[in-house]
């Protein structure tokens, strides 16, 4: 299973919020896969369920019906700690808000997932991760001393440091200006191309989606269109 080309597999994934007459179906019977080494953009209008799809696919939230598999592990039966371990080892996240721990330096932020996993990060490894995102010279700066684009690069480096099977990005350029956005998207593209990294990105910006191999269009919780590279 580990070598299957599908890193993430959703089968009839359904997510409902609330109960009784107030039930909202955020994700309606979605079946799809994300293949190793591809860059997928998930698009759709507000409330279309794209963020829910990302949360469920990443194991941040549980589906009401159907199954989600990450790297061959079915998430449905896992407890909170086991789920955390799956996320820690196989999933990386990048958010719109840069979400760095403000008390720690860039390097310490990047080392955090490894330390949480009880591993001692090598200095070389951290330097390489920072160099990869072009921040080799900013290792000892705290988030407040970095620009928005730099903070997002640190977040990307942190997401990649555990060599996850899949990197999920939720509107990663939402808080950045056009030029910085381009740099960040180019960085993601480069990581897919060079390291064969799987990336799933939620965005509402067609220009961002243009960097992806594949675009998944959602409306009312369903996949309504799927397109190859434009």
């Amino acid at each position, binding site marked *: 299973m580990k070598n299957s080309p599908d890193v993430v597999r959703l089968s009839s994934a359904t997510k409902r919020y609330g109960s009784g007459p107030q039930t909202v179906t955020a994700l309606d019977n979605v079946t799809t896969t994300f293949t190793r080494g591809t860059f997928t953009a998930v698009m759709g209008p507000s409330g279309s369920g794209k963020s829910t799809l990302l*949360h469920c696919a990443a194991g941040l939230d549980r589906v009401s019906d159907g199954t989600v598999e990450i790297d061959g592990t079915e998430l449905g039966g896992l407890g909170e700690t086991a789920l*955390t371990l799956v*996320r820690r080892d196989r999933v990386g996240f990048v*958010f719109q808000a840069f*979400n760095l*721990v*403000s008390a720690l330096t860039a390097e310490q932020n990047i080392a955090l997932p490894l330390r*949480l996993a009880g591993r001692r990060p090598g200095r070389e490894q951290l330097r390489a991760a920072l160099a990869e995102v072009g921040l080799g010279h900013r290792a000892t700066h705290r988030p407040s001393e970095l620009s928005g684009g730099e903070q997002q690069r640190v977040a990307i480096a*942190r997401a990649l440091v555990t060599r996850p099977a899949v990197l999920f990005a939720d509107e990663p350029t939402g808080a950045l200006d056009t030029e910085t956005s381009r740099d960040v998207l180019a960085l993601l593209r480069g990581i897919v191309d060079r390291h064969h990294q799987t990336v799933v990105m939620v965005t509402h910006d067609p220009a961002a989606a243009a960097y992806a191999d594949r675009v998944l269009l959602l409306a009312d919780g369903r996949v309504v269109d799927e397109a190859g590279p434009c």
Partner: protein
Amino acid sequence: MLSLATVRRRWASFLGTFTALFLGVTILCMTALVLTSARPATPQRYAGVRVVVQSPAVDQSDGTFTDTLPWPPARTRELVTALTSVPGVASAVPDRSFYVQAVVGGQPVGNPGADLRGHPWSAAALGPDELTAGAAPEGASQAVVPSALGVQPGSRVTLLTADGPAVYTVSGTVDSTAFYLSEGTAERLAPGVRIIGLITEPGAGPAAVASAAAGVVGSAGEVLTGNALTRLEATFAAETRWIGMQILTAMAGLTTFVSIFVVASTFAFGIVQRRRELGLLRTIGATPRQIRRMIHGEALAVGVTAAVAGVVLGIVLAPMLARLLVSGGLEPEGFTVRLQPPPLIGSFVLGLVVALAGVRAASRRAARIAPLEALREAALEKRPMTRTRWIGAIGCTTLGLALVLVAATGDPDRMINNVLYAAMALIVGLTLAAPAVIPLAVRAAWWPLGRLRGATGLVARESALTSVRRTASTAAPVLVTVGFAVLIAGMFQIRARGYALEETVSQQATSVVTPRDTPGLSDAAVEAVPSGASLLPTELYAGDGRHIGAVGMSDAAFARARERMTVVTGSLDGLDDDTMIVRASTSAWLGWTPGRPVPVTFEDGTTGTVRVATVITDDSSSASVLLPRRTVRRHAPDALTQVVFVAGAKRPDVPATLGAEAMSAREYAERTDAHDDRLVQIFLLVLIGTSLGYTCLAIATTMLMATADRAPDLAVLRLSGATPRQVLGIVAAESTLSAGIGAALGLGVALVALLGIRSGLSAQLGTDVSLNLPWSTMALTIGLCLLLALVSSVLPARSSVNPARRRPVGYASPRL
């Protein structure tokens, strides 16, 4: 690593926790050092003897610190003769103790609260109290006085005793504070003896002498040797020590409670604030367990630093507390702090335990934070009332109410501490229930105001309702402060009243004669006012260790009070020197029914038969037994009168050499209140100071944290068109609302506890007890809390809405 980094970077949010812990450990360490240093000590006067025979102890369970049952003169002589013949005993020396005070330059000298005692010269051998000059007193007109008086042997000195002033020739001086008179004078002033010291022959073992003496004494007394000699501590020293212990224990308990409370609430609030950060950590792979460990690590880092600093400051401050207690009369003179490791280690460990206990609930809540919370923007809190919170709230409130009941009906000695525990439980209960109680309180408080105001009221109200936890954490410290301050202040304003005897005697007086620089009035001072009404207090012993408080009424006092006393059986006519009036509860307790002659032992050790003439209701007198003043004086020659009430227009003229002064009845009433309140003032100051100082800190920290937390909200308000002034108005309104709710709940707690005390006291004293709410304390505390809440919320908010410093839009960018 993360814990330390977080503490280092976010030091501001740990400041409150640190300060609370630091102060808590300081106070604990200080009180623990003083508590462990406060031990009974054998009086210096008995330092020279290793075996002492003491008269039989009486029941101490009423907490009145009554002296032992004295031996009458004849019995004393028998015992001395028998004890002298015990092998190894060189001599058996009875000690007598009575009031003596020197009058120098027309003024009594010495602190009236201190040990102003005289003894027969023979008892100087027990110290031994060596002469520094001169010789032993010979004859009734000679005396040995403390050298500190500065009089030389051969000169004359006026000494006040219970009789009145008399002139003596100084035969010698001693280094101690004691006076020594002739055997005859001493036996006349103190016929009853409580202590016989055994001076042993060289080489005689104390244990052997003690067991032989015990064989001789039998049940007539108790032989003390070794550590048991500390029981010779003067009863008034034991009593002050006991009061001191009570205050220190209450203070330590209060401190521990308040610091756990403050630490727990600041930690809990910190977690609510850091929800996103913790959610982020969960997202990038921290397990719930790791989050818990991290939060504990933070608490430990803060705890260790605060505890070390607190112990150090505690060591520095302990001697000052000791001096304060001594000068306040709460510890005997000469009390010093001994530095010992156990209290130091204890308070350090307790500081850590408090930190870890305080963070426990917070760390659990932190561990439950879901990773998705890192992604949420909205500050809407889910389920502020959890099931455990409900269980805790109901449990604590029930426990609190139960404790109020225990305090009201149980052991009077423990009443004050029980009421404090009850208040603690109620406070914890209400704080736990706050998320459920606060919306109700907000709606109730805002209902009349909400329709008057425009946006300010609406926004403040809705924001208080939405962030129930924030409102709760700001209201909680106010609740604690107001609750304790009002309770403690109110506790001491509860006054028993309605005792007919004391009330009528004092009410009908236009002027009074009271002690001046003396512990009480001598007979000479009392007789200087021929028409005066006076009460002479004494103790009666009824066998089997039972003892009763009694007063001797002067004829004038009885004549004035008899109309107001309510007779149950018997008659107030035809009373003579060998009859007594007994309160109904005492009559029932001792089986002293009217007409019955009963054996009663007096202070002089003699036992006489007194007939119960009349039984009166409990609210007729505060003393259990009423006797003619003559009878009391005959058997208690050393008793002092506290006050003489004089009816009639002319203020009596009393010479200052008698250690007395005359004043109007009104002046006296004011002075009594002030005097009664002196001890109470210290107690109040210490306790209220502790809880107030502490919780002010908590109010300020939580408010500061809460306001910082609200900066984005305030920016949104500014963007929606609110002027800086309107924004500040909203902040002020919300702080007032939270503080007001806390104050109202605190008053509620205090009132419940005070009502409990009132019903308890009323049942115990057998008379009406009035509850006077401490309005000034109440206003002061609430005002202070409100001021603090306003200052610590409006000031930081002002800097954040000030357009000159920051653009309102500055907060629109997300920030962790």
